[in-house]
């Protein structure tokens, strides 16, 4: 895992367009980066499965049937209320690009986790990822939670890996809205 001094060094280069280094844009306040993670903020797009169209998800199906979803957009001054038991896809405000020798994990933050907000159940981010991260957000608590664009929502831990070749399929490349992706 890469600690904050090195992370900041790499970010400064990556955010200036050097492709061999990690980028996170908007860049964090470099002086405020501590420990081994970077805080990420909530973006403005949300996605929920249509209530009237998705009867079930069958993962054994070979088809590439996509989840029929309703999108939401929220202004920076707006908010999104997540009621108990509800699940929504959100997106990070930050655009993240990992070079060929860096992978990352995205996890929730303890202060919001303790109030029932669970972030990310598929936290791995592979080398060469380039775009905004889709977040799986659920309210497991008992009271509604108000989340707002720009709030700190999760944190990213970055690891060194062996050099990885560019994947053949760039399914989530350059994404700026949350996506359910394909069934298989």
């Amino acid at each position, binding site marked *: 895992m890469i600690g904050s001094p090195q992370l900041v060094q790499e970010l400064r280069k990556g955010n200036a367009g050097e492709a061999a280094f990690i*980028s996170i844009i908007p860049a964090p306040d470099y002086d405020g980066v501590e420990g081994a993670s970077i805080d990420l903020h909530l973006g403005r797009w949300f996605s929920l499965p249509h209530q009237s169209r998705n009867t079930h998800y069958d993962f054994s199906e070979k088809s590439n049937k996509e989840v029929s979803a309703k999108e939401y957009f929220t202004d920076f001054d707006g908010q999104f209320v997540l009621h108990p038991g509800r699940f929504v896809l959100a997106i990070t405000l930050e655009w993240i690009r990992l070079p060929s020798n860096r992978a990352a994990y995205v996890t929730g933050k303890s202060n919001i986790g303790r109030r029932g907000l669970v972030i990310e159940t598929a936290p791995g981010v592979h080398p060469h990822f380039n775009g905004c991260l889709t977040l799986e957000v659920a309210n497991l608590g008992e009271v509604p939670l108000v989340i707002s664009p720009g709030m*700190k929502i999760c944190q990213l831990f970055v690891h060194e890996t062996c050099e990885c070749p560019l994947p053949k399929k760039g399914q989530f490349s350059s994404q700026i809205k949350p996506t359910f992706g394909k069934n298989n």
Partner: protein
Amino acid sequence: MRHLEWIARDRLNKFRDQLRKVESAEFLNNSTSVALRSIENEIDKLEKTIDELSKLSSAKYLFQHGVTINQKLFSYSNALGVLLRSTNLRNAFEAYFAFNQMAANVIDQQDRLIISSEWDAIPFYIPSPPDALASFVIIGIPAFASRNSLLLPLAAHELGHAVWRIKQLDGPLSTTAEMHFHDYIDQNSDRFRTDFNLHENLFVQQETDLIESECLKLVSSQSEEIFCDFFGSLLFGESYLYAFDAFLSPGFGRREPRYPALGRRAAYLKRAALSDPKSLRKGVLNPEYFELADGIPSRSAIVKLADEVSEKLEPGLLEQARRYANEARAELEGGDNADTMMMNLRAGIPPDQPRSAVEILNAIWKVYFERLDQETSAVGRTNIHSSMNNLCLKSLEIYEYRYRQRNGWSTK
């Protein structure tokens, strides 16, 4: 209550219900909300007039007011559709902040920009908003292009139309246009008589007056278009030319008399947008295509005359456009310029401190072309467009985020 009164009241009430339904839309921005309230105020006024007229014994005035109500609701219905579609997720909401800033700077009023995704491909602009929305800038982007952020510079042309209308630029121009018209006739009287077949006409003066009236109408609309082209290209520079070319390609349609000839438009655009005309990408604003478009249909004598007169107005229009384009500019102080942004965009990431929407669009178009030049397949080119579009929308969002941060807005 008279039946007539009931019908009128019922119609207003039902329209008011629709206004409130649109107001309850999830993705409502301030401008749409202000516009809805402006229309509702007009509805209230119409209703108050019913209160007054219903006290009169004669139904004549009430009947006349009913006609007015119908006319007003007719024009508000179209506007209400536009306002509804401004709340639709097809819109490039990420771009709204930057364009709203530019609109506010140039028309001196906040919350007056409506951008909607429309089902009419032409025009982008809603030309005659009802009185209640006279101070609004209404831009209708065709649905198929409404999240194509690379075309956004064209919105500046439409903003130009609103500036033209709100600042009433047509008035002072008409006197100059008239003067040029008469100068032309004085200096080319034989040609004028031949072109309009007036040599053996007993009513030369009456015919000339009619020709003048028709010609000046065309000159007025051509001048407005020239102003808007200048305004858009001065504000957005090179990116305006690329968006113009991309939206009108292929074919560029036909010559519309209320616009200047496409060849002339292209010359104006290049002059306003480029310091070095040779810097334009090869193939963009191809004169061959313009000649084809301008040749259909063949130009009539009155259009030729209007072209001659409007050309004389061009220097003044350029000056006016320059003034308002300078007023419209909005920037993040100390932000990245286009060259710095291009370094990031070439690496496939958005800029961290974009200086302005204008610089974003210019950098995006340049990098887009660089990448297109390295890709020949249609699928590959479509993917490049998609990723550049997302980078553009994200860059515009980051511009808003940084601007808000600089002005005291904080993340929670």
